[in-house]
């Protein structure tokens, strides 16, 4: 089961690398036609979510200062590009996060994965750590990458795959 989830998780990173190809740095925070989640926010959000996933897996990894406010749950993307690191930098953080989470998840035993989800709000939807982490790796990322795919089209960029 873990290998299947990790396979999808690895594909997400590959897909993200394709989705950011061809995005001019000065365009990364544009919100075309009312799409709020721009490229910088999506990649930053996925990079910073590694902190949350590592918390769920019992080995919290800290995100850079200020990233929770910029990219965390409840954050609102703005078109002010001065607030966001370059997408290339955000993607490097996403890659590092993927490497950390892949190791943590691969090493997680059944005891941990069947334990109650550490985050109370999340526990209502995902009772066990395995449910919650599985959701974050195989569902949460693709939803946001799909948003980024639609953002690309609205920006006049071609299909990523």
């Amino acid at each position, binding site marked *: *089961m873990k*290998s*299947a*989830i990790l*396979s*999808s998780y690895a*594909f*997400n990173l590959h*897909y993200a690398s394709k989705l950011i190809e061809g995005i001019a740095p000065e365009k990364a925070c544009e919100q*075309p*036609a*009312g*799409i*709020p*989640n721009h490229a910088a926010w999506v990649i930053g959000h996925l990079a910073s979510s590694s902190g949350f996933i590592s918390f769920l897996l019992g080995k919290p990894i800290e995100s850079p200062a200020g990233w929770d406010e910029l990219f965390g749950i409840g954050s609102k993307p703005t078109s002010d590009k001065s607030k966001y690191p370059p997408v290339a930098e955000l993607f490097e953080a996403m890659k590092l996060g993927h490497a950390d989470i892949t190791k943590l998840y691969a090493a997680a035993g059944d005891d941990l994965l069947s334990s109650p989800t550490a985050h109370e709000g999340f526990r209502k939807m995902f009772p066990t750590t*395995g*449910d919650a982490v*599985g*959701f974050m790796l*195989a*569902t949460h*990322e*693709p*939803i*946001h*990458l*799909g*948003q*980024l*795919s*639609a*953002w690309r*089209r*609205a920006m*006049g960029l*071609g*299909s990523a795959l």
Partner: protein
Amino acid sequence: MFANYILPIYERGLDLANRLVADLSEEQMVAQPAPNMNHAAWIIGHVASVSAIVAPEFVLGLERTPFPAELVNRVNHSSSPQPDRSLYPSKAELMKLLADGHARMAQILPTLSEAQLSGLPSIERFHKRFPTVGMALTHMLISHEEMHLGQLSAWRRVQGLPAV
């Protein structure tokens, strides 16, 4: 174990799809507010075809779930969304195709053995990308579907529709 994990997430996908199209008119289903954007009729048809055809037939080597023959080439991975509403079934029909595909896979998934899940997908062209049936099903039924529902979510926002 596999079905225990995958089914609740898969069911959430169907629920999300229903909520994403609930307030759309028939004409809105093919709206393309920006050139080449995947519209709702194409996205629902496409993910329905994955549950009805790709997962049972291409991955598991079983019979496909009934799916309109004329629709297959209009929603497969090499198709592109067309603005002509008449090329796609009604919203209710599209959602039924998606629900039927989900229901069939929900019956099949609990019956799969560890040996089946660790075996190769039925068609050879999947083998390099998906070394096991479990990997192919997780991608096709969960990640792939959610990615397209994410497109649908952003497509809604372009048209001024609220977040779901």
